[in-house]
């Protein structure tokens, strides 16, 4: 959705889109090797006690409709390609939140042979939420920080070279417009 047009109508539309995005960010969740602790805490954050939905956040199944990718766990060898594909399927602009210690450094599984690294090694991460697992308050804080960032007009992090094939990457063979 990178636009070089400065047409007034386009600008107005962008403003509306940003307003909508901040007030109702949809989240897709991906577990790339987590122990389940963070995943359950993410769910608990959406359940009645913490109710993340009051910020307009909705957990959604399809990456095609999502604004935020919430990742948990270190990245296992098998999940790496799937994580990339999930990320690529999201429409731009897209944002990534890495939840938990493993997503930041690999955590307790750093030395395991089937781990290729942390989330930041594979896709660009906008917000890290530390903790093993982070408490629901921390997850809410992380989401709010991302939304605050959006309000100030921050652009999503660029795709990492050699890993995520970003929106501007030339297609390998024709087809994309």
């Amino acid at each position: 959705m990178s636009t070089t047009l400065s047409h007034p109508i386009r600008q107005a539309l962008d403003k509306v889109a940003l307003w909508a995005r901040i007030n109702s960010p949809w989240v897709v969740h991906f577990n790339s090797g987590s122990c389940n602790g963070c995943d359950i805490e993410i769910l608990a954050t959406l359940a009645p006690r913490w109710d993340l939905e009051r910020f307009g956040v909705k957990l959604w199944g399809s990456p095609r409709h999502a604004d935020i990718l919430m990742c948990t766990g270190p990245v296992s060898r098998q999940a790496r390609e799937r994580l990339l594909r999930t990320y690529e399927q999201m429409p731009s602009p897209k944002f990534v939140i890495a939840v938990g210690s493993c997503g930041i450094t690999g955590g307790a599984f750093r030395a395991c042979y089937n781990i290729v690294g942390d989330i930041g090694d594979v896709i660009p991460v906008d917000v890290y939420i530390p903790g093993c697992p982070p408490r629901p308050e921390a997850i809410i804080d992380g989401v709010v920080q991302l939304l605050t960032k959006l309000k100030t007009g921050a652009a999503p992090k660029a795709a990492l070279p050699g890993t995520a094939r970003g929106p501007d990457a030339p297609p390998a063979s024709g087809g994309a417009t």
Partner: protein
Amino acid sequence: MSDPTSILKPWSLSVSARGENRLDVEIAPSSLVSAVTEIKRARWGYLSAITGRDCTEADGGGSDGAVSAAAPAPLEILYHFSQGADVLTLRTKVPREGASIPSVCAVLPSAILQERELAETFGIRVIDIPQDERLLLSDDWPDGLYPMRKEHTSEKLREVVTGLTASASGAAAATAPSAVPLDVPRWKPGPAKPVEEKPGRFVIPIGPQHPALKEPAHFELVVDGEVVTDATLRLGYVHRGIEKAAESQTWVQNLYLMERICGICSHIHATAYALGVEKLAGITAPPRAQAIRLIFAEMERLHSHLLWLGVAAHQAGYDTLFMFSWRDRETIMDLLDALSGNRVNYSANLVGGVKYDIEPKQADGIRRGLDFIEPRLQHYLKIVTTDESFLRRTRGVGIFPKEQAEIMGVVGPTARASGVRRDLRVDAPYLGYREFPIVPVFDDACDLAARFVVRIKELFESCRIIRSALDRLPAGDLTVGVPRRIPEGEAISRVEAPRGELFYYLRSTGGAKPDRVKVRTPSLANWAYVLGVAVGHRLADIPMIVVGIDPCFSCNDRMIRVRRAGEERTMSWEDLRQYGIRFYGGNP
């Protein structure tokens, strides 16, 4: 019940009793199938776990063992059968080079996942195994590299694999470490299984990222109209390699690693491990510590089953129940938080005891929490037994007969809902379950509704036992001294996790680090049921059937990986990606 020694007499090379409840029988690889057939015919127990072991002895207690060039150590395979508190272990050794073992799948179909695990992580060829696709290792794992053999430590292995896969893919060859040998061939997929093309018949791939479950798994369901005619499962997206990593950490460090096998049942994993290490060290945790472990374990069962109830209700399209049960679950989470300062990984266990005491004030808090939760459980029990729309999703769905459940070695609430009398808290009391006996809950209905009833009724028992443990909490110390070096030996530790029997096999060579840690989680034992039951059901029932066992991928994936993805497709991933870009109008 017949004596296993006499059952196995024709084949046993040597018999040795290890401790009161264990019997080891050594047999030759060639007589394995006959021995297993005879055990099944005599109806002695069920297959709990298959453990592979590299007999290479590490030098100086470390596990960075260089294999001596003179005589390569053999590989040992252990088949653990359990019946009540008794464990019968069939041990057989195979040479390292060209290792092979006959498959027992023809006798015990439930062995297949474990045999495939054995084949891939130890490089033991399993003869006549019904499925030999790659199950464990990831798509780009180099062939001929067997992670559980002791050639490499976990860290070294990671380097080797990274180097090999990078150089194999070519694109990233520049960044690959140059010192890595490149002569290990890559695994190649066998001939693709032809899928019969027929009008109205489709293969539906689901996952690994999918909205139904919070953890990744890949299902491939062949449907004829609405009815499922074949189901295959691919796991492994969260495989990390914990068993291997455990070999390069100390006994105490591993406690925290084991706790992170699963974020839902973290306490019971650490408990099983701690009990095993204590058995090896010849110590027993003080009674007060045992009772506190029990209280934590039962509270974990409460929050785990409430979590499951919510997820299962969500699958049934009953989101109100999901929200209710998750709200009430927070009561338990608060109590765990108050006891340990942590909501999920409470880390209550130490080798030789527990970290946290329960003060009378905290005990009152727990009692108040239980006072709130019990009426709620009554309410849930009423819903799952009387709500007509809910019963239509559960009654008569996913029937798993008792006979089959017994033979397949299904464990936990899944087995108990099929009327199988199998609960380790009763059969082999550990912790304080002898002093605070539990009344197990069974149901003979064998369907999904029964699994709901069993799990909820179990929670009443949990509440009752927590109360009696709090009322009669033994006085005394929280820990006992533990030797720094754990004596040589091996131990089996079995506990009843929320999802069923959790099996730990630990082996020490007298060093600071374990020689082998084998974990068989309940979900692994229960997958056999899912794949067996799914066929013949309507597609819409599949999520409910899967969730019926309360699957936990992070547990069983610690050793499971998948068959090569994309082998049956004519489009490459890149083709698919380009297709997707075209389809969505250029927005990748």
